[in-house]
């Protein structure tokens, strides 16, 4: 069964280990600003919400790409950007309604969560199990995707 990231914001303490691990995995440096997963802080309530690409079924980013630079990794189901093909046009960054594919000025390409090829480092680094990588069956993450997708009318025509 394919796995997916399960995020439980209630368990997040805002320690940012996931951002450190992600940036190290993808850039070789501990630089949270270059992490593909981002922890949002709600100061008023003292709450935290880790957030990244849901590898959504609609894959707006993939469909909008003019040069076929985004494809589905058959083993993980992740939508993955090919650096060789990406020309940096940024159309995917406005097409993804979740804001989770972003342009990196340093490389001139876009970056997004690739599930680390099946061993997501954010989940491995999270000390409180706020991020886990589990069977995709019906996780809270699925619910989150579903609720986010439901809120988007353009998702409605994807059936079939």
């Amino acid at each position, binding site marked *: 069964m394919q796995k997916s990231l399960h995020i*439980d*914001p*209630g368990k997040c303490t805002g320690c940012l280990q996931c951002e450190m691990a992600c940036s190290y995995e993808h850039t070789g440096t501990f630089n949270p600003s270059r992490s593909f997963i*981002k922890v*949002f802080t*709600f100061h008023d309530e003292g*709450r935290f*919400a880790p*957030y990244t690409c849901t590898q959504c079924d609609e894959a*707006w980013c993939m*469909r*909008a790409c*003019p*040069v*076929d630079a985004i494809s589905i990794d058959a083993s993980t189901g992740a939508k993955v950007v090919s650096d060789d*093909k990406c*020309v*940096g*046009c*940024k*159309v*995917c*960054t*406005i*097409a*993804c*309604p*979740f*804001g*989770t*594919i*972003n*342009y990196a*000025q340093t490389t001139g390409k876009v970056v997004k969560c690739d599930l680390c090829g099946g061993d997501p480092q954010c989940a491995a680094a999270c000390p409180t199990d706020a991020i886990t990588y589990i069977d995709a069956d019906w996780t*809270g993450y699925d*619910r*989150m995707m579903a*609720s*986010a997708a439901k*809120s*988007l*009318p*353009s998702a*409605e*025509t994807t*059936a*079939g």
Partner: protein
Amino acid sequence: MKHLIIGAGPAGVIAAETLRKSDPDAEIAIIGDEPEPPYSRMAIPYYLIENVDESGTYLRDPKAHFKAQNIEVVQQRVDKVDTGKKNVTLADGKTRDFDKLLIATGSHPISPPIPGLDLPQVHSCWTLEDARNIARLAQSGSNVVLIGAGFIGCIILEALVKRGVNLTVIETGNRMVPRMLDDKAGGLLESWCKQQGIGVHTSCSVESVTAADGDQVEVALSDGGNLSAALVITATGVKANLDLLDGTGIDTDFGVLVNKRMQSSDENVYAAGDVAQGVDFSTGNQEVQAIQPTATDHGRIAALNMAGKGDEHQGTLNMNVLDTVGLVSCSFGLWMGVDGGDSAELYNADEYQYINLQFDGETLVGASSVGKTQHIGVLRGLIESRIELGDWKQKLMADPTLIMDAYIACTQELGYA
């Protein structure tokens, strides 16, 4: 079932692929008149800076992909559509039958009536053939005049600068990209361009182009200026390719008028992409948007409906993103605002930072930004989901950069204590 698609751009190709998925046994053919395999106009700027070669502009691997999907690709021009006989006539005189037809013929560049635009130094930038001509003439150090600082003009502006030409841009509007950015954002773009050594003339038009010595032309401007150039590029708008529908009685305006299923006034004929005048998410009116994301969404929705599996869609959101020599700008939906709506804005001209949000009551209906690249897609999410922002509206009014926070707080179950 015979599905016939006219036009081998993104709208046509996405439609063919979607049809194959939803109707595995159907006959599917794409007829396109350009000599190259199906390619993406959007990739042309990256071809011009030699970031990709021609094959890098191809929409799919032309050898393997269409064959594997059992999609026939025909290189021909369609001259005529007969909705009564349900066939089309190709330039070589042959006919092809269809059960369902998709018009995805895109648009063609148009020029204002300026004398001299027929000179060999003048080109539009619309096709790969145009791109080859521009690449030949836009040599490092040569003078280039770009007529039009609209979206397409600004898109190719960056490629021209990167080729090392001396560039001057002429725009009749009072600012750059007047149909995508407001005064402040357009003003930021203009001062940024000038800082990069690009000549920018706004509220100015070209009066004539005349041949001069040594393969050069003279460009006369309405503000009295005179420019010498090796290449003049026109980016002065496009018009939908509708000729092939002459005599069919299909309703057209600026494009083929289509309903929420992308269906024209003839139930067997659909339209998608730059040629289609479909429902706009924000206004509910039928509009030609002429952007890539709309072309692909249209293609998909049309195909699902042609296969009998579709739904009505909610209209496509107009949106653009632009990189002007390193300064990224974008706009979404009703970025110019609505009557009686509130707006929030953060403007820092020294840092080239701008974000503007437009509300209708409690919901976000439009947005634009300059100098921001992170999480901009969520503006689409906020607008298309029509979220009632509640408290978050006030928070966004106070700090419009909190778009991602607002979206997460309003859509996710933050299951904490």
